[in-house]
């Protein structure tokens, strides 16, 4: 066995030991990526553009949750039902503010371009401008340093899988992520509202002939994507703290996840998110933790090179 073989063997031993521990963290991150990735994919589906200001929707949800927790959480850490209530409120606040910011973004940065039939490049520049404006505004108003969110619950190990602790924080993300992504999937697949989104994604003009208001449908996809992105921002901030630049890296990774799953494909974004979270987490066995972002973006480059349509590679139009 050569040197490389030894390298692999020793790392696989580590992988065996750390697998479950890394998997739990990876799945939790994966749910967050998935919740943000669906926002990219929904907007791409109806507008064929990447909303590069989505990172600031995520950030705004983080800050909404931070201010709410600061106002509601006292000196003693809540427990039991009050923890659940506070976390629920935080998710709702993050989601509401995310939806609000997304709506404003659509109105100010995108709709005027759409009305003028602007080229795609104009949208991209508009998105980057809006993004810079928003995170610098947040930096100016809320300070340039990361602050931790007052914890509305006690983060203890709830149970163990094969010796790896599953923390309360992980469970909060699993449960809320699962509920939101499942609800979104059902809404898009089975409701009239979801049908209108799919119709616009497949053929906007024909959708309007059927009586679908395209402007309203586009605004709606921003609201839905913004709500999930904002809620994810709150959940992320809860564990990592909030700062005006907090959206950049997670949102770029969520974008990677959306591309990995097949941009425009809703379930692809969810699967891509989970996959990216898990792969990224497990990769620390093979590379130093400092290189973890390199792994995520390496995946982005590889997908774009070898399978640009992503894993599922279909369009938002599909119901199931």
């Amino acid at each position, binding site marked *: 066995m050569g040197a490389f073989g030894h390298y692999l063997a020793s790392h696989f031993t580590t992988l065996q030991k750390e697998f479950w521990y890394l998997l739990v963290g990876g799945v939790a991150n994966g749910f967050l990526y998935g919740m943000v990735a669906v926002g990219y994919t929904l907007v791409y589906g109806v507008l064929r553009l990447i909303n590069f200001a989505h990172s600031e929707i995520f950030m705004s949800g983080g800050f909404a949750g931070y201010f709410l927790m600061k106002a509601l959480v006292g000196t003693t850490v809540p427990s039991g039902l009050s923890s659940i209530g506070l976390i629920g409120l935080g998710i709702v606040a993050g989601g509401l503010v995310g939806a609000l910011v997304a709506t404003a973004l659509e109105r100010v940065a995108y709709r005027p371009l759409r009305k003028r039939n602007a080229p795609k490049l104009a949208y991209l520049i508009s998105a980057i401008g809006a993004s810079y404006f928003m995170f610098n505004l947040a930096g100016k108003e809320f300070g340039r340093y990361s602050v931790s969110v007052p914890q509305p619950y006690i983060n203890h190990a709830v149970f163990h899988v094969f010796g790896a602790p599953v923390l309360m924080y992980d469970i909060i993300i699993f449960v809320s992520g699962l509920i939101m992504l499942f609800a979104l999937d059902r809404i898009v697949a089975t409701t*009239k509202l979801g*049908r*209108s989104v*799919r*119709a616009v994604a*497949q*053929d906007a*003009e*024909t*959708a*309007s*002939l*059927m*009586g*679908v*208001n*395209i402007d309203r449908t586009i605004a709606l996809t921003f609201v839905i994507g913004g709500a999930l992105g904002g809620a994810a921002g709150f959940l992320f901030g809860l564990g990592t703290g909030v700062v005006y630049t907090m959206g950049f890296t997670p949102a770029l990774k969520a974008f990677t996840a959306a591309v990995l799953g097949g941009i425009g494909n809703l379930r692809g974004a969810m699967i891509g998110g989970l996959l990216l979270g898990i792969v990224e987490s497990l990769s620390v066995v093979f590379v130093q933790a400092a290189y973890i972002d390199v792994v995520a973006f390496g995946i982005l480059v590889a997908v774009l090179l070898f399978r640009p349509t992503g894993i599922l590679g*279909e*369009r938002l*139009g*599909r*119901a199931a």
Partner: protein
Amino acid sequence: MLNVSNAVVRYGAITALHGVSFNVEAGEIVTLLGANGAGKTTTLRMLSGLHAPSEGSITFEGRNITATKAHQFTSLGISHVPEGRRIFPQMTVEENLEMGAFGRRGSFSEDMEKMYATFPILKDRRKQMGGNLSGGEQQMLAIARALMGQPRLLLLDEPSMGLAPMIVETIFRIIGEIRDSGTTVFLVEQNAAQALRLADRGYVMENGRIVFSDSAAKLLTDERVRAVYLGEAV
């Protein structure tokens, strides 16, 4: 029922319709003939709000609808079967029909059954994706989808395009039945002979203008029409 007067449609610097006037009365089948690029499709797009006229006016059942937006037309009672059928490819046949009823409130399952009775093939295919249907099936679905909106005026753009003669026969028979059941039809067609045999009246369009019009029977024997649109040596 429908009245268009001096409608001008421009695409940027290009004028596609130079002051077009025509009318459609309730219960008629009216056909619009013309070569490729004459402005037939533009006329239909104007009649469903996809291109607002920059001059002139459109009234429908006495209401001025010149500035009405595309998504409001189905609730006015005008449904459009677009050129190339434009089925939602990744929706099932059933979902496509549901899209046709998008502007309606309440239950439409009765109408759905009616469509399946008129087009039995759609019932067999109802769980299949629209994109997997044959051209003829897609055309039937496009017509059924438009009828789900309960239109009083049905706009049809080239329903026979790319279909086998036998299927064209079926489609035209169904268009006749649609009129007999009380829906007025405005038909744009390249297949002039077939369209004129079915229609009550016809308009002939050239370079964005209506050049003449008459009853369908007279147009069928008109020398100009026969020479240019029926491909007959005169």
